[in-house]
């Protein structure tokens, strides 16, 4: 069992957990993820790491309660245990000096982005963060992000990516950005990657297709990158944004949507 040592709730449905997992906390780096399984009947859920505190043996993660499995996880409070918490999995994002970098995060990925932004700043980059949310009530970690980077912006996304596109385009046109990093929903990451590519700026996207084991065994997470099939779990999750087949990724992400809806409805009605 991996004990939840701290829990914080952010409206409307985001949870922050600190989880006691000494081995993971010693090795975790930005860009990597864990696979968590709540109990004997649980799914293996990939969750991106948003911080590691090796002195306290803990790992920080954020997740949104969007399906039955994340609702199961969200039922846990401080002192409760997660049955399995395996990692760190996937490749860490290389921390190099790019000069200026832009870190754009949507939805639940604010904590993950902050973790990367701090690390990139730690190796001497000038870091600009952009926080994207579907409405003002969904923004969180705004103060923390502002304090951690050189420049920060928030954008509320009511119009399918146009807001973030405009903002990112402006920032790229103004500065000398060496690389754009992005985490978040696929349409948003895609929009950011497209804006960057149009300006000849390299971009890193972080992909979370459907996964089962997270260690290269199942191949569910295959994505087409630069015309070749890659596994997000062992070849990624970070890929060059210009090379990703986003149409295929979007389609594949929906494969289990009907089952997820059934489980969610049953979970909401208290049947599960």
């Amino acid at each position, binding site marked *: 069992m991996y004990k939840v040592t701290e829990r914080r709730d952010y409206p409307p449905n985001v949870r922050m957990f600190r989880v006691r997992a000494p081995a*993971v906390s010693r090795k975790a780096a930005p860009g990597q993820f864990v696979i968590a399984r709540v109990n004997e009947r649980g799914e293996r859920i990939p969750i991106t790491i948003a911080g590691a505190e090796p002195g306290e043996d803990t790992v920080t993660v954020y997740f949104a309660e969007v399906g039955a499995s994340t609702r199961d996880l969200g039922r846990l409070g401080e002192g409760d245990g997660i049955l399995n918490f*395996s990692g760190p999995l996937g490749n860490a994002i290389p921390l190099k000096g790019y000069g200026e970098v832009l870190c754009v995060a949507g939805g639940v990925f604010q904590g993950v982005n902050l973790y990367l932004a701090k690390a990139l700043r730690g190796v001497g980059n000038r870091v600009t963060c952009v926080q994207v949310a579907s409405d003002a009530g969904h923004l969180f970690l705004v103060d923390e992000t502002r304090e951690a980077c050189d420049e920060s912006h928030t954008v509320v996304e009511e119009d399918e990516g146009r807001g973030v596109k405009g903002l990112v385009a402006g920032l790229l046109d103004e500065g000398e950005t060496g690389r754009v990093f992005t985490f978040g929903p696929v349409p948003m990451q895609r929009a950011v990657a497209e804006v960057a590519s149009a300006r000849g700026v390299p971009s890193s996207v972080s992909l979370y297709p459907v996964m*089962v084991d997270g*260690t*290269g065994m199942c*191949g569910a997470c295959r994505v087409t990158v630069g015309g070749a099939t890659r596994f997000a779990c062992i070849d990624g999750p970070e890929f060059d944004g210009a090379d990703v087949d986003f149409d295929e990724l979007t389609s594949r992400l929906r494969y289990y949507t009907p089952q997820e809806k059934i489980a969610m409805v049953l979970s909401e009605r208290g049947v*599960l």
Partner: protein
Amino acid sequence: MASGAQQVEMPKQAPRDRTRNFDEVALGYSEEQAVAEASRCLRCKNPRCVKGCPVGVDIPGFVGLVKERRHVEAARRIKETNSLPAVCGRVCPQENQCQMNCVLGVKGQPLAIGRLERYAADYERGSGVQTPEQTPRRGGRVAVVGSGPSGLTVAAELQRRGRQADIYESLHAPGGVLMYGIPEFRLPKEIVQAEVDYVRSLGVDLHLDSTIGRTLTVGELFRAGYDAVFIGSGAGLPHFLSVPGENLKGVCSANEFLIRTNLMKAYRFPEYRTPITVGRRVAVIGGGNVAMDSARCALRLGGEKVYVVYRRGKGELPARMEEAENAEEEGVEFMFQTNPVRFIGDDRGYVTGMECVRMELGEPDASGRRSPSPIQGSEFALDVDTVIVAIGQSPNPIIQQTTEGLEATRRGTIVVDEGTMATSIRGVYAGGDVVSGAATVISAMGAGRAAAAAIDGYIEKKCQSAM
């Protein structure tokens, strides 16, 4: 004379019943059946069956004990060289190993050694396995990577030799392919659990959720005080066909399909949270045991038509004949000398069919099987809504990528000395599918035994030179 008699058949669930459940298909011998079968053994002075066993089980010895109804002793006799008898009795290809060498087989049917092994092991488990005596500790700690057949064997053997073995398993359950790959109806998970419990009762420490190469590297294991490391991480990376349309929804690897079904128990969704989808018309690509397991799972999950599409002929099927027959009895249809050329999808990205080509068989290739080549103009379409690709696996690359100096082949298998299973790094040994590529449970166990002996010797030498 008893030996002239036919093999005693083992009862099975009727095909019509068993395609509606995940319960074990083969039901095992009764005591009378076991004793009758054991009585057929000729007790050869120079038993050739033993030479056919990769772990050298004392076959005439344990069979004789079954004949005398000393079943617990029979199981212990097997366990002297094989820590997983209930598993091997079920999934070993005995027909190509011990039973192939049986003298009875020259004129009639060989002794049903596998069924007897299963009987003895099940009997012992049913009567309550006693905790074995622990061998006095002789010093030395070994980290075993992976809890599949090779890892469990190495760990058990090292404990018996007085060395401390700790297993590191990446998944949330021990057993490796026995747990995630082989379905419940062929190898009940309760039995795997019991065999793992037996290995743990020898004193082995088991660490789950530990992906070596990520959670800890091989170098860090040595720094943590281990004297040697055994890598038995298996062949976990699924191969795909590399044909157009392979990433359509509804096309998956056999690994994914079997992991969802066996390890995650998706057949009990939504009570178990991992979903699985099986359409009405399923094609399984490949002809090995993994293909048979996938096809039979697909039937049980509601597939109405399940095809096994294999590029060679029936005679070349790499699957055990028994498994192919079971699949056929259950209603799986075989399409031999057929290969998919591309997958066809609808506008929402779901697979709806595949274009296949007929194959002709030429001269035997390097594998000794006749090599298939496509017949021009023989293309035809097959309507399917689920495709399971079961054309093999290669080793998981994580350890090879994160361990400096570990020599691997282009196919990703780890290079070892065949006698000692020693790798290019001092103190690091490897065995099982990560060395051989996807092979059998028992060959992995044979490699595990060899490695354990070599590791034991290595530690002995290391201790002496330290004194």
